[in-house]
């Protein structure tokens, strides 16, 4: 089996590749020219990993025609991991990375002669506007998400659905909010729930005041879910899914989130408990001061939407097709996540 991976040098890619090395005869990694030295350093020891220079944002994807013909002739699977991930990214960057990038990769897939599978990594957030249970097979709605990132990921996923690539089987994975691994909790940047952790760390020095107050208000819906997934669990699942995909011809979508999903309030409660701050967390409604308040405490306004998102993500399809995958426990991971976040922030300082 021969696989092409885009976005291999990202947070997920570099953890995933070692997990699947033995399953593939050759793994082609599409690397942007400027990232080649770093990639050589990371993957030099793997004999079946081949670096090919290119960029999914350019029309032809590959820099060299020879690389293009080798990949087109040989690969039987593509894992499209590349994409922009930043809730605050501007519309042009979001569209370019998450729509044009997908379009170019799909066009490449259409050229491949032996391709059997196209694996696309999307995000759970494409359905975050819905209320209640969201099933993996639900039809995608062309919803106008207010942040460009989610909107572009949704459009990218729609493109994957719409583009016909012969008999190629398409698989779409929607990871939840990817957090540090379960062993070290290490992260590469502050995003999503880490903004809250960062804020809570700042509050630690005011522990006595908070305890005196007895309550900790948090703007969120009582039903707002926080579908966290540790990056190592995600990579294990992803590795299993791309190495042993089902044979169904229909395009399949999987929510890669835990079966048991906590909400933002529970997460903050767990974190406060871990930080030994005793108070009850009280959810408060959205109000006109919220945006400004969040700005003041360093939380991007794009998160407001997710703090009130009441979608709950079904994992039925994943559990049916990959029942053997081991579930993870977020409550058990919270201490590690806090440690990882502390370490990252300390290093950054």
């Amino acid at each position, binding site marked *: 089996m021969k696989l092409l991976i885009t976005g291999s040098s990202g947070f997920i890619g570099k953890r995933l590749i070692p997990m699947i090395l033995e399953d593939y005869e050759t793994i082609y990694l599409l690397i942007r020219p400027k990232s080649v030295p770093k990639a050589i350093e990371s993957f030099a020891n793997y004999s079946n990993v081949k670096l090919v220079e290119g960029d999914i944002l350019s*029309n032809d994807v590959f820099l060299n025609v020879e690389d293009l013909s080798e990949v087109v002739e040989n690969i039987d699977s593509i894992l499209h991991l590349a994409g922009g991930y930043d809730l605050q990214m501007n519309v042009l960057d979001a*569209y370019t990375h998450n729509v044009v990038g997908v*379009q170019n990769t799909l066009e490449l897939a259409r050229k491949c002669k032996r391709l059997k599978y196209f694996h696309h990594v999307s995000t759970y957030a494409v359905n975050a506007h819905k209320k209640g249970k969201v099933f993996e097979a639900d039809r995608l709605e062309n919803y106008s998400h207010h942040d460009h990132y989610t909107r572009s990921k949704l459009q990218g996923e729609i493109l994957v659905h719409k583009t016909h690539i012969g008999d190629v089987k398409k698989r779409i994975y929607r990871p939840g909010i990817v957090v540090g691994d379960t062993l070290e909790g290490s992260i590469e940047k502050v995003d999503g729930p880490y903004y809250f952790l960062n804020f809570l760390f700042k509050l630690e020095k005011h522990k006595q005041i908070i305890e005196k107050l007895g309550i900790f208000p948090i703007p969120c819906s009582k039903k707002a879910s926080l579908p966290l997934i540790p990056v190592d669990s995600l990579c294990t699942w992803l590795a299993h899914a791309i190495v042993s995909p089902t044979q169904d011809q229909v395009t399949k979508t999987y929510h890669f989130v835990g079966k048991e999903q906590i909400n933002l309030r529970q997460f903050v409660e767990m974190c406060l408990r871990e930080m030994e701050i005793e108070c009850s967390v009280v959810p408060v409604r959205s109000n006109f001061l919220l945006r400004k308040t969040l700005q003041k405490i360093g939380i991007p306004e794009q998160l407001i939407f997710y703090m009130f998102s009441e979608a709950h993500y079904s994992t039925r399809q994943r559990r049916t097709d990959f029942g053997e995958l081991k579930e993870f426990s977020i409550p058990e991971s919270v201490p590690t996540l806090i440690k990882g976040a502390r370490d990252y922030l300390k290093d950054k300082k």
Partner: protein
Amino acid sequence: MKEILNLSIGPLDNFDETVKLLGETIRIKRLAVDFNYSLLKKLILKHEHEFDVIAITGFPTPFKIGGKVFEHQQVKELLNLPINTPVVDGRNVRDTYIPWAINYLNSKHPEIFKGKTIGFFLGSSQLPMISELEALDCNMAFADPYFLMKTPLVIKSKSKLEKFCKVNFPFLNKLRIRQFQNRDFSSQWLAHIPKFKDFLNSDVFILNNAQLNYLELPDLSGKTVIVDYLTKATLEKLKDSKPAKILSCTFATKEMPLYGTSLTEAIFYALKDEPTPVSSNDTIKFIEKLNIRPTQEDWNEKHDVQTERFGFVVHPLSIDHLLKHPLLRSFRRYKQVRKLSESALKLLPGFHYGQVKGIKSKATGKEVTGEIYAISETPKAMMSSPKENIYAKLVSLANDAHASGCKIFGLGAYTKIVGDAGVTVNSRAPLPVTTGNSLSAASTLWAASYAIDKMNFVKKKGKIYQGVAMVVGATGSIGKVSSILLSQGWSEVILIAPRPYKLIDLADRIKEDSPACKVSYGTNPDEHLSRCDLVITTTSAQGKKILDIEKVKPGCVICDVSRPFDISAEDAAKRPDVLVIASGEVELPGDVEVTCDIGLEGQVVYACLAETAILALEGRHESFSLSRDISYKKVIEIDRLARKHGVKLSAIMGHDCEITQDEIDLAKSKAKLAREEP
């Protein structure tokens, strides 16, 4: 290789394709921005150096009125961006190609345009096409006020449309281009607005591919639809509304898939030797070189075999007839029920009575089913009831018919005589209404001609019968048309009606149209009976005696079109030398089954019902015959359509049954004897 960037303001419809045309490889990359104008502008600026030409699509089409170009401010801005790569919006190709395509379609399918009503969902986006259609003698109906402003008005001329565009342009120009909320043309209430009905009843609908994304289409059964081009998705959407024919002005060749005008202009630009704007000459040159031709989507044949429905309303000609209904049949033996007064029956609402199944066109194979409805009034009761009550019943049945999928509604017997002969019912009904009078008139003449030939007493000079024909009830709708048509085939015509002043106009008109025919008129038919070879009675006398049968010339043919009959069975029996026929019944094509008793047998139906069936077979959902004034041109047209679909005279009928050849021979011999007597 040439590279084209196609930026669409519309919903996500991205693709990346490479085509080879005239030896040149062209890569086309479409990026759709889902109505994000600022993103589209940024994409132009980001990618301008990577492509040879940029095509923008999904924007409002600019229009020219009196030499002035009206274009949306955003289009203007994009076309004038300070970049080196040309940006095109298709206007140069559109202005040349669309008129050419319309003329091409007209040369291949002249029947689509000539004299037809063309409905435009958004005429302001199709102005070049409208000028061409005007030249083809088409009527037009523009739904622009509804499409743009949800105001259910219809504009009916190009000049008014231009005025509408001019007045509204400043307002529309300021609007941001955004996802257009679906405009629902399928709403039932629209069909109740008389003026909007004119649009919905158009024969041909014209729209473009982009509009298909924003429209809930009305039922287009039997209609022809012309589009600029179609994608797979829009074709599927269009098919759901079941048009009979889809014609696409698409730029499709064997080598080149489907694209709109702006992308085509970009392709022509890329194919040109010199990087200069695409001119009309360039467009014509490439049309020829690439052998681009409008196409017809080949799916309608499958659709045509599907069963379409029409509604038709009948009523009992007597109380006995009413009690034939299955629900009432059991009451027939109760004298009390039989004694129910006709006024009590008026309280019953209209009801579904049965079906006419298996009507199949000989020409196209299309099948239609007739839903037969009935109201309980007898002719007497109907004429004595307030007409508003009858209208209300008929409109209610028309609503039922519409709800059950009928596309056209026919009025039978007295229901087309009440009030203004269908005009009010048509204006209130959600579907077109026809009285069937055109075919009634045509079939009367078929029967008359058939019987006269069989009796063989009237000689012919060329195509003209050298005899006297009389029309009793000449000012009625069937009578008037019969008079006009008889005057074209007979040497002398006598017109009889109770109001002589109405006859003067008619006689004058006949004299003008058929100067060779001698025309006279009067109020008493008896005075002329001894001279007449053919008498057509079409009155509303409700069974009253209108002529003295004893005075009729031996060998005369009397066509009694009226219901109830003008000539009673007893009177007819008094004169075995006279052939009294109850014309107006015809035979429908196909394996026809009538599931209710309409007073006729087998495949035989009333001509007015047959007209409704013919219009359904032809897909002409229009108020073909309305009011008392029917056009003889329409009679000629329905005659042609009847022959086309295989509707024919069901042999000539007497009062109770078919008139056989033996009966004709008997009448003929008796007439000969009577004529020989001194």
